[in-house]
């Protein structure tokens, strides 16, 4: 019966089946322990964050510096979706931490500090996109790059080139659509997470996602037409 529960193909090799079963049981046994350690580390980081937030409110620069050092890579990852220019990217990350310090009094210590920062970062990035759109500074989308990448095997596509092409493609959409697609597809946020990051309602996120998807489909069909010409 044990053998059947693992895989029918191992009936012919009971020894292998037994080894696999033992591995499975052991790994499942260890799983809660690993999760427990992860949870402990997470809780510890949370409490460290809260201590440093309180110290920052009292005006201790070292505490805020520690907070920045702990979270700058995470914020850097978020802001890389908003600008792929290394200089602007660093400026945006800097702006996020300056803005966060200015409003640190509004952090209520209920949600993780990281989530609160992510919300500020999303707002700062969206503001940057809107500013770029107002100034008509839109990243150039190259059909040649698209064609070159489309000719490659899916597994061979370089992640940096894929991200750059996608960034330029989404830049052709209005900032609102671009934001919701970036959050939902690239950052892998669900509706609730996207709503938290944008400050919109869940309904609004759903509506905006559908609208943005339609615009994206239209854009993709335009690309297809241009390619066939």
């Amino acid at each position, binding site marked *: 019966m044990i053998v059947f529960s693992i895989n029918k193909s191992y009936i012919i090799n009971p020894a292998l089946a037994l080894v696999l079963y033992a591995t499975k049981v052991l790994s499942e046994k260890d799983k809660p322990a690993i999760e427990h350690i992860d949870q402990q580390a997470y809780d510890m980081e949370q409490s460290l964050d809260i201590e440093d937030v309180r110290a920052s409110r009292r005006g201790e620069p070292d505490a805020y510096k520690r907070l920045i050092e702990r979270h700058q890579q995470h914020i850097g990852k978020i802001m*890389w979706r908003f600008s792929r220019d290394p200089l602007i990217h660093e400026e945006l990350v800097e702006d996020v931490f300056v803005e966060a310090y200015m409003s640190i009094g509004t952090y209520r210590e209920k949600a993780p500090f990281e989530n609160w920062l992510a919300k500020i970062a999303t707002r700062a990035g969206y503001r940057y996109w809107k500013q770029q759109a107002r100034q008509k500074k839109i990243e150039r989308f190259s059909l040649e790059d698209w064609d070159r990448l*489309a000719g490659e095997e*899916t597994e061979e596509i370089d992640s940096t080139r894929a991200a750059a092409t996608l960034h330029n493609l989404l830049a052709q959409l209005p900032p609102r659509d671009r934001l919701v697609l970036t959050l939902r597809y690239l950052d892998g946020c669900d509706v609730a997470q996207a709503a938290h990051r944008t400050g919109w309602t869940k309904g609004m996120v759903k509506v905006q996602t559908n609208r943005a998807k339609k615009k994206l489909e239209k854009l993709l069909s335009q690309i297809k037409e241009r390619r066939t010409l």
Partner: protein
Amino acid sequence: MKNNDFFNALVTGAAKEQPPQVNVADRVIATLTAQDKQLERIWDRPLMWIAALSSAAAVPFVGLAVFLHNIWTGPLYEISKAISWVM
């Protein structure tokens, strides 16, 4: 490959990208310190406070002046003035 499939392939590829490392801690602290100093300087300027308070006090008077100007140069006022002269 269809465009939609290719788009999904790009999303999968882009998700694996490692963003550049950033180190902004020192610059942020320097910016915040500079801002704090600027704020301190603002609080220390008595002349600026006198100017701000007198500007605030002048606002109602400017409002009143605009209001009276609109009344006195309005057509209704002109007509009533002409009628009172005839009478």
